[in-house]
């Protein structure tokens, strides 16, 4: 959404009162609209672990004869290479979809990306790439972690919040230092969001402040947090999971999950997938057919997974806002080794996919010495941090100095996004129309992209406290203003009142004794002509609590649908819980269950329900000759068995204690042949079945 549309939408959005809740998911508020222009832009990173052989991924055809000479074991047959049609380059035979995405103007290729003084250790080089350090600099945080912390300076203390209810980044495969920030880890990992289950053992202990106490506290926190974010991801995944035509590979599944989360409304901006196995020291290719082998399988997997992702996003009209980038810790040696493989190398091509990329090939084809030996490695043309720097500036957005903060210095930008789509300051007005392209993050702008006096929407915290019951006038509006640099005037025409909020009342105000009505709150700021912020706040009668339920005897659960509040208290057999959703499942036990549902408002009433869950008895034989055996699972110690004839008369009554085998036997030899009805009752059993007596 463009920023000028916000202005248009403000009046409407303002009608929604903001209620802050540090742990809940009250995710509608016009907070969200403000951040929209940024949060809709997502980045999916695909990490190729092990060092991808760039020379067999994107082949410089002008150097084909040199390549044949120095990497004879792995060189691809020239006639199988897919001609890019530009710059004398060709793709690996398995990268057909890369070629079509390039033709569709959705692929940016940057050649020879690496860094100076290359390191050949996987671990170290991957750390360099992910921490965005110099070759000889050791950092313990990742560039993405630092980026997310820069644009979310209050993370993690106050998160999740109403305007950022979801994880900042989601890792789908193996995690890494990439999203580790300076203060915290900024990502949440979930490869199977559907498999979320609440972990039992959510203790509430206070532990001593020593190191052991801290570890215990950590275990406790993890239990809670995985319950909260896990549920958010599950909800989004289930909502967005509508396309399953991905390759059945680890990467395919990761991208399927990423796409489903995005389609399902997850607001996380960064998604990280990975594909391992690129360390092709041996068997990179099959002897006799270099188009087959480990590397070909990887290329195929990558090609098909990215292809499926774009099919999926196109189908769901989501591809406009997604950028996908691959990277690997290094390329491989120019020369091949005798085990049909290649060893750790240096620079390699990097791919960026998306509808808005500046589609073309950047960089020169690499130089291949005709007599290359191991010591010869590919020259770096672009520092990988130029790519990161450009991504922040051209796509991810942030404050004016965000990119410098994250990468510690300035880098020359590379054209990655088409200039007409670049919005450096992330204000919703792209740079070519933006007269002020350094507007601070979150500032209100006019159609020229220039800041106008405004205060962020979350400047006003307005709560309707103690919503009144019908017939009472005890409604309350609580206001507190964050930015205390100004003097605010508030008028509420409905009660014909005006107020001043300034330092004398700490910019806080409680207006009480309000009846049921919609109140208009007009805020103005002294000295700022033309600034008016309006909220419409309803003090309403709370609706009566309504609840629908359906019982599942088999799984011993009751599904509850409730309406009328944001928060519900449940009590099942004395065990209390609270829910901020209106559809939830409660676990019952065998026997009588008493379920009570209420809300924080007494006058909304209490919904009470009694549900009997019976153990499922088994009986045999049927027809029965003499002894009827009944197996009663569960934990009852005794049971009552009543036998009725077909007209409903009680014939026999047995009080039986249940042994460890859980089976009781009833002697029916004295009964005449007929059909009988048997009722089995106990504390947790209430079952009836027909018995045929022979």
């Amino acid at each position, binding site marked *: 959404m463009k920023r000028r549309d916000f202005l248009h939408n403000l009046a409407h959005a303002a009608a929604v009162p903001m209620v802050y809740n540090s742990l809940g998911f009250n995710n509608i508020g016009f907070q969200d609209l403000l951040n929209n222009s940024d949060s809709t832009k997502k980045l999916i990173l695909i990490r190729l672990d092990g060092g991808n052989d760039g020379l067999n991924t994107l082949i410089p055809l002008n150097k084909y004869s040199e390549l044949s000479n120095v990497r004879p074991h792995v060189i691809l047959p020239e006639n199988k290479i897919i001609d890019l049609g530009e710059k004398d380059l060709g793709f690996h035979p398995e990268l057909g979809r890369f070629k079509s995405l390039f033709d569709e103007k959705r692929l940016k290729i940057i050649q020879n990306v690496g860094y100076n003084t290359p390191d050949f250790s996987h671990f170290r080089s991957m750390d360099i790439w992910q921490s965005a350090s110099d070759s000889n600099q050791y950092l313990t945080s990742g560039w993405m972690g630092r980026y997310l912390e820069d644009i979310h300076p209050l993370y993690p203390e106050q998160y999740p919040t109403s305007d950022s209810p979801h994880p900042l980044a989601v*890792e789908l495969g193996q995690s890494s230092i990439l999203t580790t920030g300076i203060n915290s880890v900024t990502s*949440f990992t979930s490869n199977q969001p559907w498999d979320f289950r609440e*972990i039992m053992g959510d203790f509430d202990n206070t532990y001593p402040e020593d190191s052991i106490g*801290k570890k215990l506290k*950590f275990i406790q926190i993890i239990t809670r947090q995985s319950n909260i974010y896990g549920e958010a991801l599950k909800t989004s995944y289930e909502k967005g999971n509508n396309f399953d035509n991905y390759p059945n590979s680890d990467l395919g599944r990761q991208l399927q999950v990423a796409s489903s989360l995005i389609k399902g409304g997850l607001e996380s901006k960064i998604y990280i997938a990975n594909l391992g196995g690129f360390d092709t020291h041996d068997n990179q290719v099959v002897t006799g057919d270099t188009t087959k082998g480990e590397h070909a399988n990887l290329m195929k997997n990558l090609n098909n997974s990215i292809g499926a992702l774009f099919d999926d996003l196109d189908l769901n009209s989501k591809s406009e806002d997604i950028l996908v980038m691959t990277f690997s810790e290094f390329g491989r040696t120019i020369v091949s*080794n005798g085990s049909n*493989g290649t060893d750790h190398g240096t620079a390699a091509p990097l791919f960026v996919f998306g509808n808005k990329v500046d589609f073309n090939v950047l960089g020169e084809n690499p130089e291949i010495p005709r007599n290359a030996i191991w010591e010869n490695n590919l020259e770096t043309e672009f520092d990988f941090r130029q790519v990161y720097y450009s991504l922040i500036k051209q796509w991810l957005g942030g404050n004016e100095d965000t990119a410098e903060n994250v990468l510690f210095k300035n880098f020359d930008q590379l054209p990655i996004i088409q200039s007409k789509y670049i919005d450096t300051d992330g204000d919703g007005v792209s740079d070519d129309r933006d007269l002020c392209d350094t507007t601070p993050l979150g500032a209100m702008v006019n159609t020229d992209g220039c800041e106008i006096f405004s205060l962020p929407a979350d400047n006003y915290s307005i709560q309707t406290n103690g919503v009144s019951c019908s017939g009472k006038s005890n409604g309350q509006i609580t206001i507190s203003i964050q930015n205390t640099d100004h003097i605010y005037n508030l008028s509420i025409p409905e009660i014909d009142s005006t107020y001043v909020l300034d330092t004398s009342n700490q910019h806080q105000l409680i207006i009480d004794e309000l009846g049921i009505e919609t109140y208009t709150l007009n805020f103005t700021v002294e000295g700022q002509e033309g600034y008016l912020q309006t909220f419409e706040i309803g003090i309403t009668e709370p609706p009566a609590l309504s609840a629908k339920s359906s019982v599942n005897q088999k799984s011993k659960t009751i599904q509850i649908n409730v309406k009328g509040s944001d928060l519900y208290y449940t009590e099942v057999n004395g065990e209390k819980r609270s829910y901020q959703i209106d559809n939830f499942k409660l676990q019952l036990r065998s026997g009588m269950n008493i379920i009570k549902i209420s809300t924080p408002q007494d006058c909304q009433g209490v919904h009470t329900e009694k549900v009997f869950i019976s153990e499922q008895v088994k009986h045999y034989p049927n027809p029965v000759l003499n002894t009827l055996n009944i197996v009663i699972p569960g934990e009852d110690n005794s049971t009552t068995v009543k036998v009725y004839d077909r007209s409903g008369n009680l014939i026999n009554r047995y009080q039986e204690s249940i042994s460890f085998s859980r089976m009781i036997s009833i002697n029916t030899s004295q009964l005449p042949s007929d059909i009988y009805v048997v009722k089995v009752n106990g504390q947790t059993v209430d079952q009836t079945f027909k018995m045929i007596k022979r």
Partner: protein
Amino acid sequence: MVNPTKQTSNKSNPIDLVDLFYKEKIDFKELLKNRSNSSKKVQEFSLEPLDQELTYNQKSHLLRRSLVGTCKRHYEDLDELSFDEIYDLIFTDESLEEPVNNYYYRRSNQEWNELYGRDDVLPGETFVNNASTERNENDEYENGDWVRKESIESHMLTNIYYQKTSIHWKLFLFLHNLVPTDGGQGIDNKGIWNYYKLIFDSCFGSYKDFIFNITLNPAMLVYLNLGQSQKETPDENYAREVQELFTVGKRPFSMFTEDDVREAARLLVGHRVDYETLFKDGEVSYQHNPWDHDTGDKQFSSFYGNKKIEGRDTEEGMIEELNEFVDMLFYPDQSKLYITRRLYQFFVNPEISDEIEQKVINPLSEVFKSSNYSLTETLKVLLKSKHFFDESNFYSIIKSPYDYVFGVVKELNLFDGVIRNYDQENDGNFSIPERLSNLETRNLYISNPIRWSLSEQGMELGRPPSVSGWPPFYQQPVYDLFWINSVTLKNKIQTVEQCCKWGLWLEDGYNMTCDKIDYLFSYENIEDIDLLLEEMSERLLSRSISEMDKQRIITHSFNGADKIHWTQLVDELKNGNDDSWEIEHIFEKIIFQVFSLGEYNMF
């Protein structure tokens, strides 16, 4: 209906702890701050032996750090022993028999027979050097006969379960983590066993000799590609890792160069798996091929004292080169320091402060060097030391899956538990098939669910996430916290639940639970529930159980009944009441909850 949870075998990929760890939102600054605070608390840095009669808490600390899960019998082994005798016992090596054909019931299935062919090995006889099932029906070489692989893995787990009061198996895990292979992928069961056996046999020897031996180990030759290296274009994989991960350590701490990696690759090329030995009966072995060896001289950097190793062109010469190379790897001080640090991190504390580096690691590394790189001699000094018994080290690490799972099954004496079949019990014709009652074959079935639990908690033998081993043992600054995430927590709790409730899944219909009454009687004060919980807490938890947790557990387990009801049930049980159903039911809930406490995760 009673429906025990059936376990399915684990998915193709082991879970990734680092991955799962980062899913959690963690305040790192806080974490690091606390970590640095914690190391300040160490009072005692002396490596002098404590040399006094050990208290219960000290014995307990020593056993936890020396064994893979502790239980009562280990404590009993220490009774009446003097300080030195305790260490003599703990530093006694164990023996590891070859696994035998205990899988014959698995073969009795027609389909399996067709798929895996004949099996030359008779029940009860060792199969690890038999080649009979390594070819498929087309007489082609095929990887992994999973029935035999399962048997080897079960053999290892069973041995860990029955371990003596000896540090041997813990050291085995240490070495497997430090110098891992992926359990012989691509080299079959003979290779797996060969690797495990080398690791096991090297625990009490010289680490330097071990580095020589592991270089030529067939599983390692395959795992890090040395076996496929060619002299024109030598493969650098092993050449790099043997320096970076197995001896001198990573940069910037050690400063070996890229040229050192290349020279090492040239030096090492030509050592191969002897595939002949893989396809016929007998141990799998290696060979040295002078014609495939780079016979030129190798010049190393100043980090290795500008060592020049003369190139040679005979088998003996290649071995000499390797010998000189291994000698050279131990020339820089970085090697002794790196390995000493790894020992310290594994056995005492993953975090090493500057003070510990100076006062503990440095002198200890001298012991390591002067003992010809003996892991056990070094550990003996460390585990006897006053520093080791500094109370800040007690319960300071989060249990690895091996410490956790074996802690549970050993404590509950699971291998001597009760086999259940709920369907048959209901139908009243309960019988246990021979394969599950015969002790020899039964262990195969019991160790499977244990292996799945280990796998789901992030650490399975032969499946390291990378050649660096498992991140909780080396990845600073997070270390052992990596073991804890929502997935592993869930599995830990499920494992306990299965052991004490439904039972671990053996095969369709059959489950194995612990004998709860037996376990109850392993405690002294069982009549009084409060005292019982305190006793459990003392034995199992890192700190006394909180009053709140105690009340919570009682409320949850008793379903509203009075505490006196428990006392009555125990009395009835002691007076010979056979119907222990109710007390088992309550006690099972108690076990489950005590083991679910965060305090049970520390060791």
